């Protein structure tokens, strides 16, 4: 059976896709090349070997990223659900508001939190005016994680909202009808069905959180160096491209491994219901 697919055929797909993929992949290949060469261009595993020195920074990055991701998920999940249940007109406005920070320069979003949290910042000023003791907020791990959460929250809310607003209400009614109270319905129906949104939200928050830079410098006061900052330093200050490339590659592999494990876990969970 031959479909008359003149339209797609005329744009002649395959070569175009091939070229685009080369364009997209080539710079990544360059990174890989640099990761396995020294400054003179000959093959070496030194860069990779050196990474072990940074293992605590890698771990901290993943740890902070994971915490920020979990907080985003916990905050966003009820929020997305509530938004999806409000009137259609309100939904658009709320989603607009949620997306607003994305219109603002990334640096600035981080700076404004600095101004809010500083020892002489807005919150502490208020506390003092209220006659309370000022609180150390800036330069704590909490501030770093807050920065991550604030920056990447919309990327968690949007996919969750999108899947929840498409969820058929009669499925929830069916669950209630069969004897489920609210907690059971969320646990056994809403959450499993929204799983693709959860996975996509986690991915979209975890990946940039782990490799972020600046946030820790500004909100952590340099006490909590993250791998993104180290990579930046290699390029900006040390000019050790090869080590920077090796770090990036390792980070990418680590992230993919984390996500793979998570996917595996949720898949198993899905199939595991059977037993």
């Amino acid at each position: 059976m031959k479909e008359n697919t003149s339209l797609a055929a005329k744009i002649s797909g395959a070569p175009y896709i091939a070229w685009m993929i080369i364009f997209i992949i080539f710079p990544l290949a360059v990174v890989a090349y640099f990761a396995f060469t020294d400054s003179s261009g000959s093959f070496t595993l030194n860069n990779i070997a050196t990474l072990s020195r940074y293992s605590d920074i890698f771990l901290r990055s993943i740890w902070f990223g994971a915490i920020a991701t979990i907080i985003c998920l916990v905050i966003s999940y009820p929020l997305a659900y509530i938004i999806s249940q409000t009137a259609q007109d309100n939904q658009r406005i709320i989603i607009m508001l949620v997306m607003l920070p994305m219109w603002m320069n990334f640096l600035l979003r981080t700076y404004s939190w600095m101004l809010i949290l500083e020892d002489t910042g807005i919150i502490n000023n208020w506390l003092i005016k209220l006659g309370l003791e000022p609180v150390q907020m800036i330069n704590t791990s909490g501030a770093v994680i807050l920065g991550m959460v604030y920056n990447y929250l919309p990327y968690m809310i949007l996919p969750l909202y999108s899947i929840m607003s498409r969820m058929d209400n009669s499925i929830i009614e069916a669950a209630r009808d069969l004897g489920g109270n609210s907690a059971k319905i969320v646990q056994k129906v809403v959450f499993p069905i929204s799983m693709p949104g959860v996975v996509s939200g986690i991915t979209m928050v975890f990946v940039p959180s782990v490799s972020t830079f600046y946030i820790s410098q500004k909100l952590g006061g340099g006490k909590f160096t993250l791998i993104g900052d180290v990579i930046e330093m290699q390029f900006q200050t040390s000019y050790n491209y090869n080590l920077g490339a090796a770090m990036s590659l390792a980070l990418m592999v680590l992230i993919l491994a984390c996500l793979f494990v998570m996917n595996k876990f949720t898949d198993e969970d899905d199939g595991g219901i059977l037993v």
Partner: protein
Amino acid sequence: MENNVIIDLKNIAVTFDEEPILKGINLYIRDGEFVTLLGPSGCGKTTTLRIIAGFLEPNSGDVMFENKRINGVPPHKRQVNTIFQRYALFPHLNVYENVAFGLRLKKLPEKEIRQTVEEMLSLVNLKGFSKRKVESLSGGQQQRVAIARALAVKPRVLLLDEPLGALDLKLRKDMQIELKNIQQRLGITFIYVTHDQEEALSMSDTVVVMDCGRIQQIGTPIDIYNEPKNAFVADFIGESNILDGIMKSDYSVEFSGHTFECLDKGFDKNESVDVVVRPEDVDVVAVEKGAICGTVTSVTFKGVHFEMIVDIDGFKWMIQSTDQQFEGDEIGLVIEPDAIHIMKKSDYSGQFGDYSSFSDEIEQLSSASEEV
């Protein structure tokens, strides 16, 4: 047991956005009965069902379950389960887990769950489908998973909201028989919502005809078909010729310029009435033998019979006959007394029962929906 009332709706009214949806519904349903709520879309039949299920609270009126008022009782605490229009299966669970869903919520032992699920799947002819994904099933199979899922929790009453609407004709007929069989085997109460009159007639013990938020008639299928209460019911349940008539005396009615013998009495002398004649109850004869006569304006072959439109003094009758006539033929019609049914005049008089123009009907439909 047959006379045990299980559900009793008392003067139920529902208003949505200041628009009345139900205007005082009174309806009781006996245990083990197969009741169908029949009406056009927007008549309030699904709203009635949702009130019984507990998804909606009426603005006024009482919902009684075995003589106890259950207004405000949430759906999961009612012994009533629903089959939703588009099945509403859980997409993340397989067939087995869909059916087991309600049982797991009851925290029954695994062995009992397995037993019940298997029983239900064999009841709906889906043995061996346990591990299939619900999306991989055909519409008819999904429908039957929904039935098994609802029946697994052993409801006293099963509510079915146009459950066969999405199925093919042939499958729909088979499923009608299946559903009726299941209901008879289990002996539980079915409340069935549909806009398909044939479905209502062939499955139900009792048919409740609704329109505009009111019950128009309650009765057995045969009552509803043979003794419709008003022009709406007559038109909605099957094809009907509905004419203006005058009761000359008991057992005698005049319409289409001729006085016919009939079986009805008790009307005032010369009272205006609606006369219903079913297309299949008219006998076609030669012109000279007919009580009234007219011209055939169109003929359609329907398989079992021919369907003709016959113009009699400007009123277009629909007549069904197994003998073929042709366009332009003059024919005579004979109507036996038992083929004539007399109804009191109602708000619906004059709105239905003339087959002069289908396009008009469509135009009405169009302008109606334009207002919405």
